[in-house]
C-alpha cells in the first residue's frame, strides 16, 4: 500500500473542533505539502493520518520523539525495532551488530553527521536532533512519509538537501511545511488548511507562491 483514502477525519481539543470533518485521498506517488498558518491544524492532521495508516509509514513528528539518553545510532536504529526479535534488539542496545552500524553510518553520512554516531542525543543541537529524527524515518524505509515540519531547524542548503533526500527516498509523502517555497519545489501537490478545513488542493505545477498567501 502506498496511497490511501481517508474520510471523516475529525479532531477536537477541549471540546472545540480543530479539524474536519474532512476527507483526503492520497494516490501512490503523490508528494503532498500541507500548508497553512500555524494553528490551522496541520500537525493534528498529520497525527490523524498516522493513526489511520500506521504500519506502512515513516513518521517525523514535530517534537521528534528522540530518547535523549541513547546514542545517535540507537535513536536511528529505533526505526526498525519492529523488524527484529526482542533478543536482537536487546543485544543491539549493549553492542550493535556491524551490519547495522554500517547501514546507519551510511545513512548519517548522507545527512552530514557521521562523526556523531555514538554521541548521546542529549548533547546534540536542535538541527542535529532534527536530522536524527529524519535519519530514523529514512532507516524505517516505509513507502509513505508523514512529516511535520521536518526541516524547520535546518539552514537553507541543508534544508534543501534533506528535502531532496526525502523526495527521492519516499514514493509517497505528506509533509507539513510552513515554507511555501520548499513546498512548491519539493512537492507535487499542495493542500492548504484553513480553520481545520481543506481550503486549497492543487498540483504545485499550477501554483505560484502568491496563490497560497491567502491562507496566511
Amino acid at each position, binding site marked *: 500500500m502506498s496511497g490511501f483514502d481517508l474520510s471523516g477525519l475529525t479532531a477536537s481539543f477541549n471540546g472545540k473542533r480543530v479539524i474536519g470533518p474532512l476527507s483526503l485521498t492520497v494516490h501512490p506517488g503523490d508528494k503532498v505539502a500541507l500548508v497553512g498558518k500555524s494553528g490551522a491544524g496541520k500537525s493534528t492532521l498529520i497525527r490523524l493520518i498516522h493513526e489511520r495508516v500506521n504500519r506502512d509509514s515513516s513518521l517525523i513528528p514535530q517534537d521528534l520523539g528522540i530518547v535523549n*539518553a541513547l546514542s545517535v545510532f540507537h535513536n536511528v536504529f529505533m526505526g526498525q*525495532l519492529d523488524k527484529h526479535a526482542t533478543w536482537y534488539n536487546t543485544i543491539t*542496545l549493549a553492542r550493535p551488530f556491524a551490519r547495522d552500524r554500517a547501514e546507519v553510518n551510511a545513512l548519517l553520512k548522507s545527512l552530514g553527521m557521521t562523526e556523531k554516531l555514538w554521541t548521546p542525543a542529549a548533547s546534540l543541537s536542535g538541527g542535529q536532533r532534527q536530522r536524527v529524527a529524519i535519519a530514523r524515518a529514512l532507516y524505517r524505509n516505509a513507502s509513505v512519509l508523514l512529516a511535520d515540519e521536518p526541516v524547520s531547524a535546518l539552514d537553507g542548503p541543508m534544508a534543501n538537501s534533506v528535502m531532496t533526500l526525502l523526495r527521492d527516498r519516499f514514493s509517497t509523502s505528506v509533509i507539513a511545511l510552513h515554507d511555501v517555497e520548499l513546498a512548491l519545489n519539493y512537492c507535487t501537490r499542495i493542500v492548504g488548511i484553513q480553520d481545520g478545513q481543506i481550503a486549497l488542493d492543487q498540483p504545485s505545477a499550477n501554483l505560484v507562491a502568491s496563490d497560497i498567501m491567502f491562507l496566511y
Partner: protein
Amino acid sequence: MFSSPTVRTSFIFLAIALVGLLFADIAITASNPWRDLGNFFLGVVTPNFFSSEGLLTALLRTVAFAFVGVALGGIAGFLLALVYRSLPVRIFCAFVRAIHELFWALIFLQFFGFHPLTGVLAIAIPYAGIFAKVYSEILEEADPEPGRALPPGTGNITAFLYSRIPDCWVKMRTYTAYRLECGLRSSAILGFVGLPTLGFYLEASFSQGLYSDAGAMLILFYVLIATMPLWVRPKLLPLYLLGAPFFLGDGLPIVWGNVQRFFTEDIVPAPLRYGEGLTGLMPWLTDLVVNEALPGIWNTIVLTQIALVATGILSLLAFPLISNHFGGPLRRNAGHVALVIARSTPEYILAYILLQLWGPSMLPAVVALALHNGGIIGHLIGRQTNSIKLRPDAVTGFSRYSWELVPRVYRSFLAFLFYRWEIIMRETAILGILGIYTLGFYVDSAIQNIRFDRAMVLILVTALLNIGVDALGRYIRRKLALQTMPTC
C-alpha cells in the same frame, strides 16, 4: 504573613509540638550525663582500631548484608514497579515498607533464627516496597514522545528497553545508589538485634564502656559511607554482588520446625490457640488495645510531632552551613563535614548513644531524630540555595537569610519535611526497642515474653499508623501544592 497557607500550616504543627511537649517525658536522668558525654567524645578522638579482630569482620558483614539485601530488594522492587498500577500491588508495597527493617528482623529472628536469611530479608522486603514506589514514579515521568514515535508492531519488551529505560536510567541509578547508602545504615543497626553487623559490636563496646572501640567503629562507618563514590563503581558492582553472599557468615542453621510452629501456633492469638474461641478473643484484644496499643500510639505520635518540628528547626538553622551565600570556603567545608556526619549516623545509633549517656526519656530520641533528619534536609536545602542567584546589591548577613533565602526555599523545605514525616514516625516506633514507650517498646516486650501473637498485632498497628501518616503527609503536600523529588 499568617495569610500564607504554608506559614499557617507551619504554626499549626509548631503548636501541636508545643502541646506535645507538655505530655512528653523529656528529662536527663543519668547521674552525670556531661561526664559520660565527655568520655564518649574522648573515645571518638582517641579511636582504637586494633582492639578486636571482630571489627573488620563486622564491617565486611555490614557491607555484605547491605549489598545482598538492597540487590534483592531492587530486583523485586523493579518487577513490582512494572505492575504498580494494580491496586493490590500498591497496597502490598505500602504495607511492607510501613514496617521497619528492625521489625522485619525481629519477626524473622523468631523462626529463621540467626541465619543470614534473617538479615537479608529484613532489608530486602521493606526496600522492595520502597523501590517499587520510587521506580514506578520515575518510569511514569519518562518522556512519552519516543514511545509514540516507535514503529507500530514493536514488541513490548523492546519498546520498554528503548523508549523508557534509557530516559529513566540515570535517575534510577542515582536513587539505587542512595538506597545502597541507606542499606548500609540499615545493615549496621541490624546488629542491635543480634546479627553480626556493626551495631552488635557497637552495643558490646558501649555496654563495657569501651568508648575508644565504639569511636573507632563509628569513624570506620563514616569513612565507609563517605568513600562510597570511590569504591562503588559500575565496573566493580558485579564483583560485589557475586561476592557479597559469601561474606554473610554462616549464622545458625534454620530449624524448619520453628518456621512451621511460628505460623501455625505462635502468631495465632492466644484465645484461639487455647480453644476459647471468639468469646475469649474480645477481652484479649481489648486488653491489648487499651494497655499496649493505645499508649504506644499516643507516645509514638507525641514523639513524632516533637521530632518533626525539631527536625524542621534544625534544618533551617543548618542549611546556611553549606550555602554559598554565607561565609568562606573554610566554614563551608566544615559545614559539609558536620552535615555528612549528622546524616550518615543512623538515628537508631544516635539515639542509642544518647540514651546511654543521658538515661531513658524521650529527649535522646528527639535529638537523634532531629540531628539525622535535620542533617539530610539541611543538606538538600543548602544545596538548593547554591543554585539561587541573588541580585548583586542584595542584603547580607541575617537579613539575607531571612529575606532572600528562607522565603525562596521555604516551600521545598516543607515538602521535604512532610516527605520525611512518615520516615520519622517509622523510626520513632522502632526507637521503642531502646526503652522509650513508643510502639516498638510494646512490640519488643511482647517478643521478649514470647507472645508473638501480641507482637504481630502491634506491628500491624504500627504499619497502619505509618500508612495513615504517609497518606496525611501526601494530602498536605498536595493541598499546599508542594513538590518533591523522591530522593530524600
